[in-house]
C-alpha cells in the first residue's frame, strides 16, 4: 500500500518536472496504473494471441489461475491446449518444455518460485542453455523460464534465494530482471519473441504494486529490448545500479538524499545477462562514484560482476573511490520478521553506503 503511494507520488513528480522544463502548459498524459501482475498477464495474453506456437506450462497455471494469479483468465480464454497444468516435477516439466521448444513450439515454463528451479537446473543449463552452441547453431531452444525470484515475505530460506547470479553465470542464457510494469510487460514480450532460452526473474512482492504505464507501453507491439539498462533518475554525484525490487529502494534513497543536496543517478539494469556495461560506464564517467544494490548474496553476485567489469574498462580511471556493494546478508534467509528485515537491503543501508562512498 505504502509502496504504491510512493510510486504514484514519484510519477506525479516526474510529470511536474517535465512541465517545468518545457515551459509549456499542458496536461500530463493519460496515466494508467497497472500492477506488475496485470502487466505480465497482458504480455502473455498478447503473445499467446499473436503466435499459436506459444504456450504456458507449470504447476497450477491453468484452473487455479496461477499460484500467484499471474496467469489469471488465460486458461479460460485459451484452453487446455495452450495452458497446461503439470504434475509436481520441475525436472519433468522443464524437460518437457525444452523438448517442445526443440520440436518447434515456444513454451513459457513457469516455476512456482525459482527456488524450485534447482530441481530442474540440469535441464535449464545442460539442455536449454548449451544446446544452441553444442549443435553449432542448428538447434535453437526458444523457451522462457519465468517465476518469482528472490525474497518474498515470511517464506524463509528455501523460498527466498535470488538466482540472478547463478543463471547469469551461464553462457547461452539470457537473464532478465524487470522492476516496474513497463519492464515486466515489455521484457516478457521480448523474451517470448527471443529465440534464445531466457530466464525471466520476477518478484513476488512487486506483483501487486501498480506502476504508471505510458500510452506507448499499452500497445500490443510494445517491447523493451533485452540487454539495455534504463536510467530511471538522472543525477550527477553518484551512480546507483540495481535490478528488480531494489530499484524502488534506490529511488527512495535518492529522494531522501536529494534533500541533503546529493544528486543520485539511478540505473535500472533490466537485464542481468547480457549486462549493459556501457550504460554503467558512461554514468560512472559522469558521476565518478558507484554503488551497486541487489537482494542476492554478496559473494560472486551481480554487484561483484559489475565491480569487475568497471575495473576492466575505461570507467575505472574515473572512479574517485572504490565501488560499494549493498547486498543481502550472507546467510540463508531466516523466517522471523525482524530477522528477515535485517537480512535484506533497506533504504537506510543504501543511504549509508552512498555517504560512505562520497565520504560525507
Amino acid at each position, binding site marked *: 500500500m505504502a509502496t504504491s503511494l510512493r510510486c504514484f507520488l514519484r510519477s506525479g513528480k516526474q510529470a511536474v518536472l517535465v512541465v517545468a522544463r518545457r515551459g509549456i502548459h499542458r496536461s500530463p498524459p493519460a496515466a494508467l496504473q497497472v500492477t506488475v501482475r496485470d502487466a505480465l498477464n497482458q504480455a502473455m495474453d498478447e503473445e499467446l494471441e499473436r503466435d499459436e506456437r506459444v504456450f504456458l506450462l507449470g504447476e497450477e497455471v491453468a484452473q*487455479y489461475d496461477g*499460484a500467484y494469479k499471474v496467469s489469471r483468465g488465460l486458461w479460460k480464454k485459451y484452453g487446455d491446449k495452450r495452458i497446461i*497444468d503439470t504434475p509436481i516435477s520441475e*525436472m*519433468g516439466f522443464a524437460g518437457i518444455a525444452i523438448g517442445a521448444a526443440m520440436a518447434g513450439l515456444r513454451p513459457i515454463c513457469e516455476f512456482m518460485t525459482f527456488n524450485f528451479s534447482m530441481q530442474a537446473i540440469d535441464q535449464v543449463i545442460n539442455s536449454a542453455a548449451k544446446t544452441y552452441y553444442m549443435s553449432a547453431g542448428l538447434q535453437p531452444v526458444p523457451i522462457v523460464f519465468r517465476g518469482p525470484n528472490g525474497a518474498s515475505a515470511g517464506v524463509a530460506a*528455501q523460498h527466498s534465494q535470488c538466482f540472478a547470479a547463478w543463471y547469469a553465470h551461464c553462457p547461452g542464457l539470457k537473464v532478465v530482471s524487470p522492476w516496474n510494469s513497463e519492464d515486466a510487460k515489455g521484457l516478457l514480450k521480448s523474451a517470448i519473441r527471443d529465440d534464445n532460452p531466457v530466464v525471466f526473474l520476477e518478484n513476488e512482492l512487486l506483483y501487486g504494486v501498480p506502476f504508471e504505464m505510458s500510452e506507448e507501453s499499452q500497445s500490443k507491439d510494445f517491447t523493451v529490448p533485452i540487454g539495455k539498462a534504463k536510467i530511471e533518475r538522472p543525477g550527477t554525484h553518484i551512480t546507483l545500479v540495481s535490478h528488480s525490487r531494489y530499484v524502488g529502494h534506490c529511488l527512495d534513497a535518492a529522494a531522501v538524499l536529494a534533500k541533503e543536496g546529493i544528486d543520485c543517478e539511478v540505473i535500472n539494469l533490466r537485464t542481468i545477462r547480457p549486462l549493459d556495461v556501457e550504460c554503467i560506464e558512461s554514468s560512472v564517467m559522469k558521476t565518478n562514484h558507484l554503488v551497486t544494490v541487489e537482494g542476492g548474496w554478496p559473494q560472486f553476485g551481480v554487484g561483484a560482476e559489475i565491480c569487475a567489469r568497471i575495473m576492466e574498462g575505461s570507467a575505472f580511471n574515473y572512479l574517485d573511490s572504490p565501488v560499494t556493494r549493498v547486498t543481502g546478508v550472507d546467510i540463508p534467509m531466516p*523466517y522471523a520478521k525482524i530477522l528477515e528485515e535485517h537480512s535484506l537491503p533497506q533504504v537506510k543501508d543504501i543511504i549509508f553506503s552512498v555517504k560512505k562512498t562520497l565520504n560525507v
Partner: protein
Amino acid sequence: MAAISGMSRMSGLCFHAVRQTAARKALRLQHWRSFRVTAMHQQQPFDSSLEKPQFPGASAEFVDHLEFIQPNVISGIAVYRVMDRQGNIINPSEDPQLSKETVLNFYQKMTLLNTMDRILYESQRQGRISFYMTNYGEEGTHIGSAAALESNDLVFGQYREAGVLMYRGFPLDLFMAQCYANADDLGKGRQMPVHYGCKERNFVTISSPLATQIPQATGAAYALKRENTNRAVICYFGEGAASEGDAHAGFNFSATLECPLIFFCRNNGYAISTPTNEQYRGDGIAARGPGYGMLSIRVDGNDVFAVYNATKEARRRAVAENQPFLIEAMTYRVITPKSRPLMSSSKQENTLFLLLKYVIQALKQK
C-alpha cells in the same frame, strides 16, 4: 521372489566388476555376503540348453503371442480396512486389540490436533503468521502410524504430519512457538511455520522442497541398518509429491540397498488444485511399489486401526527382513471445517467421526 531379486542383484554386481579378474570378482562377492544381514542369494548358473530367457535384466518365461500388460485402474488395488462405516470391527481377527486407554488417547490426540489447527489456521488468516498447513481429514494417518512405531524410529515428514509429532509428546507450547517464531522456538525463528523438528523425538525437521525427504529417508534407513539397532525409518509424503524425480530415486534405492524403511503416502486426491487424474494415470501410488520390488498395500486412511495394523506389520518386517514397504493411505483433504469439524457428507467419512463411532460402541460394550 528372493532368488529372483538375488539374481538381478548378482548380475548388477557383475556388470560393475566386468573388468576385474574372476578371482577378484569372487572376493567382492564374499565381501557383500558378509556385509548383508539377509540370507545369501545363490546365483542360478546359466544353462543355454534350456528354452528359457537368460537375460540379466529380468527373470521370466517366454510367451509367443503379442499382448500388452493392461494397467488395471478401474478395479485397483483393494483398500484394507478394519472398521465399517458405523465403526464396527468387520473381521475380529484384524482387531488390533488395543486397550481402552490407548484408543481414548488416539481420539484425544486427534481432537487436540484438530483444535490446534483451527487456532493456527485462523492466526494465518489474520496475518499473525505467514503460513499454515492444516491436517483436517488426515489425523487418522498420523496417529495410527505414529502409534505403530517405536519412539526411536526416525520420522521424515513432508508438511502435513503434525499429528505424528503430537502423538510423540511434542508440547503445544513448542508447536505454537515454532509457528510464531518467538524466543521459545527451538529453531530460533529461522524456519517457516509448520516446519517442525525435534531431535529428542526423532522427528527430522520439515524441509520445504517436495519429496526431497524421500531419498534422504532411504539414506538414513541405510545408515540405521549399518548401526544394527533395530530402528526403522518412516517417510511421509503426499500423492502429488510422489511425482517428483526424487521419489523415483528414493523408492528405487530403498529396494536395491535393502533398507528398513516404510514409505507412507497420504493420498488425499489433490495437490493444491491439481486432482489425481491430472497428477498420474496409473492406479495411485501403491501400484508403483511392485515396480520397484517393494511390498505394498493400500489402506483406508480414515480408519485409524487399519493404518495402525498396516504400519505395525510393515515395521516389524522392515526391520526383521531389511526391506522397504509402501503404504498408501487413502483419505480426504478437508479444507476448512467452517462448521462443526465432525460433520461428514455422503462422499466423505471424517476420520474423527469414524473413530468416535467406534469409541462410543466400545465404551458401551466394556
